[in-house]
């Protein structure tokens, strides 16, 4: 009877407990959220950004977008969408209210329109630089939509005679230099000065030689060679410029280890790559999917940048030192996944992704994890490591596998001269350089602390050794003295033993 009661109680309790287990979070994301650990394995991580809502052209009240090609968030928070298929620019204020729609401009009394515009940049003054692709020109408009100037077919002796200018993406730095990515240009990014004169190329992608192909070519006929792919550098796919005037450029090159570049004014790649692995999006991928193909890049505050992988529909965010911070997005039909993502932007803490296939904008808002990471990275970037520590601790509560947080805490502890603890954190974060520095300091500390003890023990040992030697010396002396008397004894002894008395 009692046993039965016990059983009953047990079942009731177990049922209760099973119901007490929390249901999966309501805000479950429609994509896998993960990060790569030191061993280059994808490990699950809390989502850093979750889809908030999507906006179509209809939602905004301007009619559906048709193949939108680009989106820009200006410094003042205004949002501009390049609606390529409808050949118009939709301008919104930061509250998603339609401000105006630019369908054309007035060129010296003549009304002109765009033809398949696919790129846009808005500078600090609010001037619009529109890559009017099929018209082969860059149109510069004032904030009111008046034509300021145009950059048309450039003329230069380094350009081929049959060259046709097809601008796709455009970016402008503080010195009003205009950088253009054009179709069919393999020499790099085209650079124009403030008056629209073509000055040259920056940041050429290097050609890698494929030796198997090379050997293959040696044995092939002329006709076969003509059929083969030419070895030309890859084209850039997109550009962005940061506050210091450095260009961030992405290129689509399947075999490249450096699809993202940060170009200094003289065109050298100066991107910091201090992370565990190359900055190329997914370091592990299914062969059917292939590697990441970056089609857009957005420079975020505090040295971070987000790159949009069109192949997998993911957004990879890195900090200034090249550590992968988080990944969100995916391919699919749900909210928060994309068909053909073309642009990633950053607006008031949220990230926006423009989907060409769906013709909508997905708004992602940061989670507690994401905003903590962003804030901590910001503190670290500005050299305020001590303030980053509580945030890193918060991050570690949410994700104990987050190596960057361990390293961040380690660096702060190193500043505070708590070397032993710093060593522990660097080891957890697998940061060997940091560990080495902390260890060296800790070792010196220990040595200084125990130098007295060490010296004392050495002195004692030396004294003991000397005493031992002296003792041995005396003992030998006594033995030799005894040996001097030995012959007598021996003779006597022998005599005794032999029985001679």
């Amino acid at each position, binding site marked *: 009877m009692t046993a039965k009661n016990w059983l009953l109680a047990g079942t009731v309790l177990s049922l209760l407990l099973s119901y007490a287990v929390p249901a999966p979070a309501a805000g479950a994301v429609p994509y896998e959220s993960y990060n790569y650990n030191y061993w280059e394995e994808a490990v699950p991580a809390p989502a850093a950004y979750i889809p908030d809502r999507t906006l179509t052209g209809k939602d905004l009240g301007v009619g559906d977008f048709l193949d939108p090609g680009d989106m820009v968030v200006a410094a003042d928070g205004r949002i501009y969408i390049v609606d390529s298929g409808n050949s118009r620019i939709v301008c919104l204020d930061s509250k998603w209210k339609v401000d105006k729609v630019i369908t054309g401009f007035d060129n010296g009394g003549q009304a002109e329109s765009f033809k398949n515009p696919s790129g846009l940049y808005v500078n600090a003054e609010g001037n619009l630089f529109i890559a009017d692709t099929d018209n082969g020109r860059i149109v510069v408009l004032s904030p009111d939509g008046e034509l300021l100037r145009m950059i048309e077919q450039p003329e230069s002796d380094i350009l081929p005679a049959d060259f046709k200018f097809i601008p796709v993406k455009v970016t402008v730095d503080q010195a009003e230099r205009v950088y253009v990515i054009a179709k069919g240009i393999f020499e790099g990014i085209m650079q124009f000065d403030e008056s629209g004169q073509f000055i040259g190329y920056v940041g050429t992608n290097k050609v890698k030689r494929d030796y198997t192909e090379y050997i293959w070519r040696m044995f092939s006929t002329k006709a076969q060679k003509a059929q083969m792919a030419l070895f030309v550098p890859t084209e850039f796919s997109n550009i962005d410029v940061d506050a210091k005037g450095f260009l961030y450029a992405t290129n689509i090159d399947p075999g490249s280890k450096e699809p993202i570049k940060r170009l200094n004014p003289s065109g050298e790649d100066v991107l910091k790559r201090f992370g565990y692995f190359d900055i190329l999006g997914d370091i592990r991928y299914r062969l059917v999917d292939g590697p990441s193909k970056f089609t857009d890049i957005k420079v975020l505050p505090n040295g971070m940048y987000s790159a949009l992988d069109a192949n997998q529909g993911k957004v990879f965010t890195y900090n200034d030192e090249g550590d992968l911070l988080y990944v969100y997005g995916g391919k699919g039909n749900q909210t928060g996944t994309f068909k053909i993502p073309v642009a990633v932007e950053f607006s008031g803490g949220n990230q926006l992704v423009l989907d060409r296939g769906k013709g909508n904008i997905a708004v992602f808002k940061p989670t507690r994890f994401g905003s903590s990471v962003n804030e901590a990275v910001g503190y670290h970037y500005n050299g305020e490591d001590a303030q980053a520590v509580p945030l890193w601790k918060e991050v570690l509560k949410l994700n104990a596998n987050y190596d960057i947080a361990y390293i961040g805490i380690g660096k702060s502890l190193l500043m505070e001269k708590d070397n032993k603890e710093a060593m522990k954190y660097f*080891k957890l974060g697998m940061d*060997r*350089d940091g*560990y*080495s*520095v902390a*260890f*060296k300091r800790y070792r010196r500390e220990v040595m200084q602390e125990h130098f007295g003890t060490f010296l004392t023990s050495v002195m004692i040992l030396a004294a003991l050794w000397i005493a031992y030697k002296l003792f041995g010396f005396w003992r030998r002396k006594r033995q030799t003295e005894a040996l001097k008397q030995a012959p007598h004894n021996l003779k006597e002894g022998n005599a005794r033993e032999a029985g001679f008395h």
Partner: protein
Amino acid sequence: MRQDFIKFPLHLMVHPFDSFWDLKYEGKGKLRVTLTLLLLVVISMILKNQFAGFLVNYNDPRHLNSITQLFTVVFPFFLWCLSNWAITTLMGGEGKFKEIMMATGYALVPVVVIYTPMVIASRFMAEEETAFYYLMMSVASIWFVALLFVGIMTVHQYTVLKTVATMLLTVVVMGIVVFLGTLVLSMLQQITEFFINIYRELIFRT
């Protein structure tokens, strides 16, 4: 005991020509010492992979397996001895299989002597000092190869050139042995599969 296990191996490290001669003709080499040395090498390898300092240890601790490490030392050792014996019997070598084993085993002494102290030292090293660790590890390997060379030369009474040739051939033969081994294994697998299938077909006949 002390003579066999400690004095003679240590003497061999620095006087290889005399000692290998003694090993062969004076009966100073002992098989039990050889096997002990092999075991010590396995242990030092395990210690190195498990306990080397963080700055020089790039192993994933989750995938360390002592049994696997035992085989990665013992299997090549016997494979080498076997291949070398196979080659040298055809090429006028004087060494018996036991002597080849002893020569190879005794050549491993520097590995035993250097690895463990270096592993301990590496735990007290900073980044700049790790170069010394790598240097010592390379010294151990080079020393081992040099001793092996002298050992094979003395055991078989070869000239220098012939020793080099046989050693290279031994490596080739090792490859062939591994290849044949995998071939045989896969054949056996196919055969067992075949018989299992026949058995199943007989079982399911109605």
